[in-house]
């Protein structure tokens, strides 16, 4: 009795965005390592130098292709209000402007690096070299962008992957500094700067994306998830005795042709003492456009409170829904939800009362 | 004596009947000829408006550059005059060759002759500026040129041509044409550049630049006054005129002498009072030159057809000196004095110098064919002709001092008592 949730459309684009972003980071890591191998004149029996140079070039072009897909899927996915221009002009997006903007900045640098390299004979060696140094800035920008905009920065395997890439880049930079023939002071300064940046990023990650509630602090707009408040939401462990909020979301409806329907409503609860993500799923028989419910599932993830609440619909009367949900500790809450559905667009608004 | 703008009748001016020409009428002591003395002797070189014919005069005279490459001067003048844009003249008085002192003598003793030539050439190609490049260690020469420029300016002798003295780093390669131009363009250093464009196309400030050796311009100054037929009275048909040669080493009176091109080395040695002791070989052409066995030297004529005259410096090596040691010393100098810009030159000249030094010191681990391989490997692989000159020098040493090399390789010691 499971139906494909139409909401998974949005999910596909989001996974694509996330996936291409991760692959881009891996490619850019590889490209940076290859660049260091090239400038430090590494060669082996089976790897002639032109191969290292050629891979460095081609993988960069490949990475750009992935970044372009990454940008397109992000913009096409209407879940977050991101426009095409936000991908090249940094810090003007409505969605997590700083962290998205860093990605735009990294993309701009990547384009500059690539263009000057393709036109190297025209721009001359000095200009090319000066711009190419920015590669060492582009990589950490891309990394912080990924950690700051992702919604699953705490996933174990992603952390391991990120750590692997960071380790590879750190090793490459170390080799570069050790083999450089610039003045010692310049090399030491560069080394200190690298360590400082690494420490900063690590510290920021641990206090930022690694902590729950990052999405709010990262500047996710109200239409998605978060308030516009700049102050970090404190971490509570239980819901207050009662709270109210406004619901904004979408509805998706799927029918299997045999008279069974599934209705999924997902949205954000904002504007009250408790904010969070609410998901309602109802299964049952088609009934004049509505549903004669036979099964349901409700989840509520409040912001700033560890642990999700889940449960079932206990009452359904037209546009009024009552659900009882509980968290893993056993605290229960009765949610009373009043819905206004625009059947043309699938947009959902309403109110939520918890007690 | 007022500076007239009309070229005086040749009869009024004392044309040197034979040698010396450039070095004629030098005052006693080492002081320069003053402007008054110069004008009294030669009159003014300006002929107010008929400058274009200077190139024809120079062409008819067959004058070749006296800086080492012996390139036809008229061809150079025409090439620069024919370019678009206002040209610039550079007088190359840097003379970085350690064994040569002729340009310094000219600048120090008869600067006005050189400056006359510079101004005449400038007018012939349409230039308004002439830079006089002097090595920054040559203080006496610098002072003489500065004073000469000053006195000419006071008399407004040179019309619209401005003379400027420039001090150039005292390095061997600093006098190379493109290095000089690069330095005058503001640096970073006086090092050769990878041509094109060549200076005659785009040089100082992007203008077509005429770089001419100081002695060449001194000859131009005399040709302008006395004409091509006079110039051709000494020398040979294909190499007319006189040259200044620096003679040093085991001769009685080392110094700068003026001889006719094509004259035998014997005559030059006689002028210098003959050799002081037994000579085993002569280095002809300075540090980029070739070694010539003393036996062959007796019949040798000072002509490009017989031997590359290079910087016109000749060093007489006494028999008691180890030719190999002397070669090693010069090879090391050439290696150190390279601009250091081109890998093959840096490595090659270094390897050659190392090997020669070791050989001279009695270390028998090197092989002659290795040195010969390096000598061949550096030729033509630099941005300038520095490795070519060094290569030619080392090659001639290996040939002329072959016995010495054998001795060192076999027995680890020298035939000469001095190392």
């Amino acid at each position, binding site marked *: 009795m499971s139906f494909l949730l139409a909401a998974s459309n949005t999910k596909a684009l989001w996974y694509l965005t996330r996936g291409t972003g991760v692959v881009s980071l891996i490619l850019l890591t590889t490209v940076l390592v290859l660049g260091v191998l*090239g400038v430090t004149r590494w060669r082996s029996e089976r790897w002639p*130098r032109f191969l290292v140079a050629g891979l460095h070039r081609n993988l960069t072009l490949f990475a750009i292709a992935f970044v372009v897909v990454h940008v397109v899927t992000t913009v096409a996915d209407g879940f977050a209000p991101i426009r095409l221009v936000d991908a090249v002009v940094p810090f003007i997006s409505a969605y997590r402007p700083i962290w998205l903007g860093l990605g735009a900045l990294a993309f701009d640098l990547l384009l500059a690096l690539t263009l000057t390299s393709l036109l190297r004979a025209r721009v001359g060696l000095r200009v090319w070299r000066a711009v190419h140094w920015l590669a060492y800035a582009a990589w950490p920008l891309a990394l912080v962008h990924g950690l700051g905009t992702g919604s699953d920065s705490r996933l174990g395997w992603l952390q391991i992957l990120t750590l692997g890439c960071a380790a590879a880049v750190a090793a490459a930079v170390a080799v570069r500094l050790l083999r450089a023939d610039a003045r010692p002071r310049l090399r030491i300064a560069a080394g200190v700067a690298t360590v400082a940046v690494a420490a900063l990023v690590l510290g920021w990650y641990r206090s930022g994306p690694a902590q729950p509630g990052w999405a709010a602090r990262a500047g996710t707009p109200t239409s998605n998830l978060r308030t516009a408040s700049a102050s970090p939401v404190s971490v509570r462990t239980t819901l207050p005795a009662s709270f109210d909020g406004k619901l904004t979301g979408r509805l998706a409806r799927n029918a299997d042709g045999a008279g069974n329907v599934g209705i999924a409503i997902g949205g954000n609860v904002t504007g009250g003492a408790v904010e969070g993500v609410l998901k309602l799923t109802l299964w049952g028989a088609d009934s004049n456009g509505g549903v004669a419910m036979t099964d349901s599932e409700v989840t509520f993830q409040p912001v700033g409170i560890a642990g999700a609440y889940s449960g079932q619909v206990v009452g359904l009367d037209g546009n009024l829904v009552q659900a009882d949900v509980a968290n893993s500790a056993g605290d229960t809450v009765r949610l009373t939800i009043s819905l206004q559905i625009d059947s043309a667009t699938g947009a959902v608004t309403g109110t939520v009362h918890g007690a | 004596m007022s500076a007239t703008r009309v070229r005086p009748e040749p009869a009024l001016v004392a044309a040197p009947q034979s040698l010396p020409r450039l070095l004629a009428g030098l005052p006693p002591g080492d002081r320069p000829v003053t402007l008054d003395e110069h004008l009294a002797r030669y009159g003014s070189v300006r002929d107010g408006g008929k400058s274009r014919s200077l190139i024809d005069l120079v062409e008819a005279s067959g004058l070749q550059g006296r800086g080492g490459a012996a390139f036809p001067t008229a061809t150079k003048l025409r090439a620069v005059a024919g370019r678009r844009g206002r040209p610039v003249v550079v007088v190359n008085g840097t003379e970085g060759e350690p064994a040569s002192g002729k340009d310094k003598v000219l600048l120090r003793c008869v600067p006005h002759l050189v400056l006359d030539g510079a101004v005449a050439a400038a007018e012939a190609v349409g230039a308004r500026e002439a830079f006089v490049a002097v090595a920054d260690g040559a203080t006496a020469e610098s002072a003489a040129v500065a004073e000469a420029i000053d006195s000419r300016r006071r008399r407004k002798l040179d019309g619209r041509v401005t003379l400027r003295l420039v001090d150039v780093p005292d390095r061997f390669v600093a006098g190379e044409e493109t290095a000089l131009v690069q330095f005058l363009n503001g640096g970073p250093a006086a090092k050769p550049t990878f041509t094109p464009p060549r200076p005659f196309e785009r040089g100082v400030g992007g203008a077509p630049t005429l770089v001419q050796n100081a002695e060449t311009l001194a000859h131009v100054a005399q040709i302008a006054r006395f004409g091509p037929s006079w110039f051709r009275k000494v020398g040979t048909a294909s190499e007319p005129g006189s040259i200044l040669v620096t003679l040093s080493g085991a001769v009685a009176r080392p110094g700068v002498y003026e001889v006719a091109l094509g004259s035998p080395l014997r005559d030059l040695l006689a002028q210098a009072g003959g050799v002081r002791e037994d000579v085993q070989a002569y280095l002809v052409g300075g540090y980029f030159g070739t070694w010539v066995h003393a036996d062959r030297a007796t019949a040798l004529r000072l002509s490009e057809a017989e031997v590359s005259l290079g910087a016109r410096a000749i060093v007489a090596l006494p028999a008691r000196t180890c030719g190999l040691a002397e070669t090693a010393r010069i090879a090391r100098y050439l290696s150190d004095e390279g601009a250091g810009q081109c*890998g093959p030159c840096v490595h090659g000249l270094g390897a050659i110098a190392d090997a020669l030094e070791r050989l001279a010191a009695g270390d028998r681990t090197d092989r002659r064919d290795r040195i010969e391989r390096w000598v061949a490997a550096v030729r033509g692989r630099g941005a300038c002709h520095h490795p070519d000159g060094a290569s030619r020098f080392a090659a001639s040493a290996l040939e002329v001092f072959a016995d010495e090399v054998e001795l060192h390789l076999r027995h680890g010691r020298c035939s000469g008592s001095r190392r």
Partner: protein
Amino acid sequence: MSKVVRVNPIACEAHGLCAELLPERITLDEWGYPIVDPTPVTGELERHARRAVAVCPTLALLLAEAGRRSPVTD
């Protein structure tokens, strides 16, 4: 109008990629610097030569007109 490969010895830093991509004209000496064969490159070889010119990290390799040496020299 034939082309030859030339190297700018001042810009060259002995990376050696050119010799890998154009062994028909370029070999490396014992210090890693290119020895360039001045024979012209034609047809298929010119394509390889262009690739070698593009890959040089210091833009030291050039494709030039054959026989173009300046006449005025000192």
